[in-house]
């Protein structure tokens, strides 16, 4: 059985979508981030970085945080949505990392300045809007050539990016 600590955010939905694809049984433990539940001791014991999602797999005793790590963990546990070798594996990992390091953090930055704090910094809004437009251009360019981010198959790279 898998315990998932999450909330309805893009990073959490990566994992719930993968779990649903896999048909794995899991218990959802809501961590209400607006109430500050991610700072409670019980949660910090699983993720010292106070961010959702985090996962405990009672079958293996593995607990892990960071959505990208959880996606790789579940994909390797089940042998699905992450090719085992070759360029397909390389492409899945680099597009997953592209989401983790670029698309995700930059959308988060833009949301902070443009949606939650408009007018605080025109410079920061313009900075992140430029970067997000660039990243959508890269995504569109890739998907103009291939069906899915890794090439031929639906993978954890798509599941990381879609939410």
């Amino acid at each position, binding site marked *: 059985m898998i315990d998932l600590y999450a909330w309805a955010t893009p990073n959490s939905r990566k994992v719930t979508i993968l779990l649903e694809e896999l048909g794995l049984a899991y218990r959802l433990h809501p961590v209400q981030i607006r109430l500050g539940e991610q700072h409670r001791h019980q949660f910090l014991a699983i993720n010292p970085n106070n961010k959702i999602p985090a996962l405990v797999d009672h079958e*293996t005793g593995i607990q892990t945080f960071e959505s990208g790590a959880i996606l790789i963990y579940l994909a390797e546990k089940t042998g699905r949505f992450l090719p085992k070798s070759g360029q397909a594996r390389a492409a899945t990992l680099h597009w997953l990392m592209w989401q*983790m390091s670029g698309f995700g953090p930059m959308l988060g930055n833009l949301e902070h300045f443009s949606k939650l704090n408009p007018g605080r910094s025109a410079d*920061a809004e313009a900075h992140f809007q430029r970067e997000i437009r660039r990243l959508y251009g890269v995504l569109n360019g890739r998907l103009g050539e291939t069906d899915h981010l890794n090439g031929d198959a639906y993978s954890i790279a798509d599941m990381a990016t879609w939410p």
Partner: protein
Amino acid sequence: MIDLYSWGTPNGRKITIMLEELGLEYTMHPINIAKDDQFKPEFLAISPNNKIPAIVDTDNGQTLFESGAILMYLAEKTGKFMPTEDKARWATIEWLMFQMGGVGPMMGQTHHFVKYNADKSAYASDRYLTETKRLYKVMDARLANNEWLNGDSYSIADIATWPWVARHDWQTVDLNDYPNVARWYKTIAARPATQRGWNVPETEQKIPMP
């Protein structure tokens, strides 16, 4: 043989340090980002996101971009710096992702707002410096009870994180405020492979010491 397309940035140095640790043969192709080399069609064919680093492994023709993916690839290729034992393996990958999703992008914004555009937005400078210091605190707590980020062994999680911590001077962060991070930082700085990797491409910059 590995063809490496890179430059002397934190993300670039992750890979040169890893390659030096592994003793793998590689050819460095400098992509001078100050001269927009990353927008040239031959580079975009390898890295469509126009970012360094990227590699081509001429042993099997595989190409990769994104430093975190390259580190995982090289670790899996050689069986080094990413443990195969379950608990240590997942600790390595989660702390690698912590670097990729947090340390890198947030400290990158600190460099943008605090170092390069200090007069543009006090609010943004403060936001990213506060987040940077929070991340240092998380690392300091982790390294208080563990020698390395994954627990017991030097791994790609440390190799990914160290070059960003090596910009603490740009971030206006005093590493001595985070004594466990400072201990870890100095240990890695003393490794010969770190010193060789730091200097590819050749640089007059010295490794900053707290």
